[in-house]
């Protein structure tokens, strides 16, 4: 895989100088130097699985007919940017520890066994990650996905969980591990959770707070560069003092101090790159609009569950308008971060698997009813209904229609976000979606927490070799959910990604890429 960054640096060396360097980032000059769009990776997630008879398309392969749930992607013009899958399983790495959503989420993103549950002062089902998540795996193993700085951003649109769980409100886990208190006593070693940002405003500030209004110019580059150097001296100082603390404190404090130091060092590499290149802000990179502080989802513990299938838990007002708005704000920031090449790896989560977001009018025959998603899903008590081939009658059928409608809602909003990614061009003039692989996955197969058969989608990355337009059904011969990740890994690592990821912890037994989804680009 050609390293575009290397091309850029050699061009830089050739040109030399200070302020004039910014021209290299002009499209034409960059292309002339042989540089091309870098790859990106965007992991996305939707909550509470699916309803089999409402999800499954008819037919397979390229000529499938979409279901009601999948249709929003077709309507948005994304058929040729999308591959649909049905029939993954978590069983090969299912330790049986932890809750349905609570362990489903780390299993989904890490492909590792959950070794235990976290003592969080609430329920005992908060599964911890047994290894890093695939966004972090790719970030570590694919140099072209790396940018100076932390290299990733994580966003979530709502963070209401049942009972103080971390697992359901986090997709991303790092390679660093730490020992924490386990829910049932003793300790468990977990991969460190990299919690997503809930507030679009905070996400914006984390990336664009220092941007000059109006973007970078010759005049302010020099000033910016001086500020970078001064900031670096502050961070150097902090590292020195952290080092002192580490020498004094017992070994148990090391993980904590190392995590702090790693955060500083990753920013230092970013600053050093800016100092070396003389360029602080990419020409043409303008910060997106600063989000309103009020545009943010909710967080905290919720426990709104009822018993009577005829009376799902009602809200007084629905969350969907805000939920959609927050999703768009987060995506606008991720897109800007990709365009400005501040980050090439991101995760985007709509909500925890125990989704407390409420929706109006999605329940059949009750246009004014406002019900919460996950609490309502638990009124379906028999998994055979949600994983059956046809609609049950009566209340159960209505509840499942509600769940299918919610999934269709999410897909429609997700399609709109993907279209933003599709029309957005990077500084090389290419569509971001073509250079970004976007898996879209869920943490349970259906509402009663089955680990299979799981649905999944992959969007984008066509310039990286992903080929789309088909529906793949392997529910008769279930495939490890890790097959989805290694399929995607080909876009970054080429054929035989498993050998390049041999040192990573995810379960590899019987794992292989799904045939036909990736083809080496010419």
């Amino acid at each position, binding site marked *: 895989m050609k390293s575009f960054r290397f091309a850029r640096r050699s061009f830089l060396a050739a040109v030399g100088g200070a302020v004039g360097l910014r021209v290299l980032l002009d499209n034409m000059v960059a292309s002339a130097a042989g540089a091309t769009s870098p790859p990106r990776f965007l992991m996305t997630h939707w909550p509470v699985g699916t309803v089999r008879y409402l999800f499954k398309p008819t037919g397979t392969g390229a000529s499938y007919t979409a279901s009601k749930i999948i249709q929003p992607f077709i309507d948005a013009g994304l058929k040729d940017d999308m591959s649909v899958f049905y029939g993954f399983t978590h069983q090969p790495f299912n330790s049986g*520890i932890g809750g349905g959503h609570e362990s489903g989420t780390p299993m989904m993103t890490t492909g590792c066994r959950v070794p235990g549950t976290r003592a969080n002062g609430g329920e005992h089902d908060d599964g911890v990650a047994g290894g890093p998540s695939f966004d972090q795996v790719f970030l570590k193993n694919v140099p072209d996905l790396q940018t100076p700085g932390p290299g990733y951003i994580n966003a979530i649109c709502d963070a209401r969980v049942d009972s103080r769980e971390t697992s359901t409100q986090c997709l991303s886990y790092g390679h660093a591990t730490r020992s924490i208190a386990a829910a049932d006593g003793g300790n468990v070693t977990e991969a*460190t959770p990299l*919690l997503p940002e809930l507030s679009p*405003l905070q996400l914006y500030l984390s990336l664009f707070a220092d941007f000059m209004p109006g973007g970078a110019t010759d005049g302010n580059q020099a000033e910016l560069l001086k500020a970078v150097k001064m900031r670096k001296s502050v961070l150097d*100082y902090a590292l020195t003092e952290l080092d002192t603390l580490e020498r004094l404190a017992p070994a*148990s404090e090391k993980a904590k101090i190392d995590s*702090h130091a790693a955060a500083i060092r990753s920013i230092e590499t970013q600053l050093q790159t800016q100092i070396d290149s003389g360029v602080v802000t990419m020409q043409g990179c303008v910060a997106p609009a600063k989000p309103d502080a009020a545009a943010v989802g909710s967080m905290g513990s919720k426990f709104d569950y*009822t018993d009577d299938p005829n009376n799902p838990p009602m809200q007084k007002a629905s969350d969907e308008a805000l939920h959609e708005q927050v999703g768009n704000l987060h995506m606008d920031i991720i897109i800007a971060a990709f365009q400005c090449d501040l980050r090439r790896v991101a995760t985007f989560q709509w909500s925890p698997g125990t989704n407390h977001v409420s929706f109006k009018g999605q329940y059949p025959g009750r246009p004014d009813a406002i019900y919460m998603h996950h609490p309502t899903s638990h009124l379906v008590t028999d998994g055979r209904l949600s994983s059956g081939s046809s609609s049950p009658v009566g209340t159960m059928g209505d509840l499942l229609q509600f769940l299918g409608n919610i999934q269709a809602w999410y897909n429609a909003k997700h399609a709109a976000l993907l279209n933003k990614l599709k029309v957005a061009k990077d500084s090389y003039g290419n569509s971001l979606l073509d250079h970004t692989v976007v898996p879209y996955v869920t943490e349970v197969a259906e509402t009663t927490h089955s680990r299979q058969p799981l649905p999944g989608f992959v969007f984008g990355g066509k310039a990286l070799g992903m080929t789309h337009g088909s529906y793949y059904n392997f529910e008769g011969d279930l495939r490890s959910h890790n097959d989805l990740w290694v399929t995607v890994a080909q876009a970054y690592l080429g054929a035989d990604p498993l050998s390049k990821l041999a040192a990573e912890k995810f379960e590899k037994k019987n794992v292989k890429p799904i045939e036909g989804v990736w083809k080496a680009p010419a």
Partner: protein
Amino acid sequence: MAKLSWRRAAAHQMGLLSSVLALTAACGSTGGDGAATPGAGQSAGASAGTSGAAGGSAATGGSSSAAGTGMTDLGPCEGTDVPLHKRVVRLSFNQISNAVTALTDPTLGATIATTYEIGDSLHRTFPPLASAREGSQLTDMSWAKTDKIAADVGKYVLANAATATNCGAAPTAECAKTFVLALAERAFRRPLNDAEKANLGKVLTDVAAAGGTASDQLQYGVYAVLESPHFLYRTELGPDATQAGALTPHEVASQLSFFLTDAPPDAPLLEAAAQGALASAEQIGAHVKRILATPTAKQNLQDAMFSYFGLYGLETVIVDTPDFTPAVRNSMQHESELFLKTNLWSPKLGSLLTARTSTINATLAALYGVPAPTSGLDADGFGAVELPANRAGMLTNLGFLTSRSRPDTPSVVGRGLLVNAALLCAENPAFPEALSSQIAAASAMLSEATEREKSAYRTSTPPCSGCHTGFDPYGLALGNFDSVGRFTATDAKGRPIDASVTLPPNAGGAQVQSATEMADVLAGGGAFAACMAKNVMLYAIAEVPDEGASQQSVSVTGCATQTIASSFSKTGQSFSDLIEQVAISSTLGQRTAGVK
């Protein structure tokens, strides 16, 4: 009736740290099912390794019995009363913002809190670092926030140099350096050693080398101070980090101040630290008394207890009755805040459970069934009233009951679990998913039964009885209070409600006729005091230990808790006394060396 949902409706979500106390052996015996099913077997697994009696396993450390009048002897304790090793504890975001205020001014502190969406104290997790969004360690994103705050403080001080420093609007390099070093001493909450001063000095020279002016030196010097780990963490290393023993006086000052006020130590504390006068129980106790008299400390601890009891749940709880209007919701929340404000500072901790007065408005008076208050009303229309004899303290407080209500009906089991966890720090068992179909069948069979009859079934039928005897009685005793806390003598079908119960073993097993009698028994027993001791101690130590042995020590039967409970029982037994006992405890004051 009961399926997955009642578990969800239980108290687990509150800002509580349930102890790691093993379940009673009786509760663990769910037959073969529990152990066989992964996930559902968690509670069975936890109890498998323990011996029978409610109250814990064989003592591994010192023995401590709860002496004093009316206290149940809880027997030998687990672990040690020095469970913490040397550590560095990060300041929470709220503490950082309060420190910024203390170092600069309230305007900047407020701006920081708003810009970085640092949540207010009523909504915090208990204790704050236990929240996933705070955490005990900084990672890329949370560090980035502290970094931006530090940078903002630097910018602010420069922009306001004329008032924030004595260097005037255009500082000289020398004045900048003097200011930065003086700021560092205040920010680090202790004097700097020579190396630390030199390291900060180097920042200033590096800034100059990069082309920075004296103004830049001031800005980036201040930025460095707030970026420093010596600001962001408080240490608990003692004078010799390799030797077990006491914290340094300055470390004591920081620990104490952040515990009581969520803010850095004030001048008298720092002065005492400088004099080495923060070592004995008398010395520390005097500062505790002094600080507890301040509104800041009172408000902080009230808010902490508000978050402990999960009363913020009122904001979002759904109760499906038209009587639960937004005005009612807001009134309940305000009443709960005022309840804590009044009763935390009363002569007895037990008042939390027994107080019969409350400060309410006309809206709430209607729900309590009393005349609206007419005199001594505050600006919000709230005034003190005497509640009816069927009310007692937190247990029958409208907000406390309603914050945990299920949308459709109050839950005996839900309330039982709540009392068990919140007031007695007992471990609630996980819902036995393996028994779901049996539970559904029983619910169908009992659909026309009274709550009492349903509970009688649960507490007499194995395997249900194994768990339900441990908490159902608390919920039954509260059976007269509906979803919004109104007293009702009969249920929805007009059948009289009988609230008499035999309390479970962990509350002493007495027979009581009503919620108020139950409140009296709980207030007088040792379990409630031990539970409050445990929680105040956890709040004070901020970062809950993550090692198995240490966790046991800070559980409700652990030696750390029991030692404090025991010494508390010899005081006047107010909440302030409890705070003081925690503050002077060896748990707070001593550290083991830890593994190097």
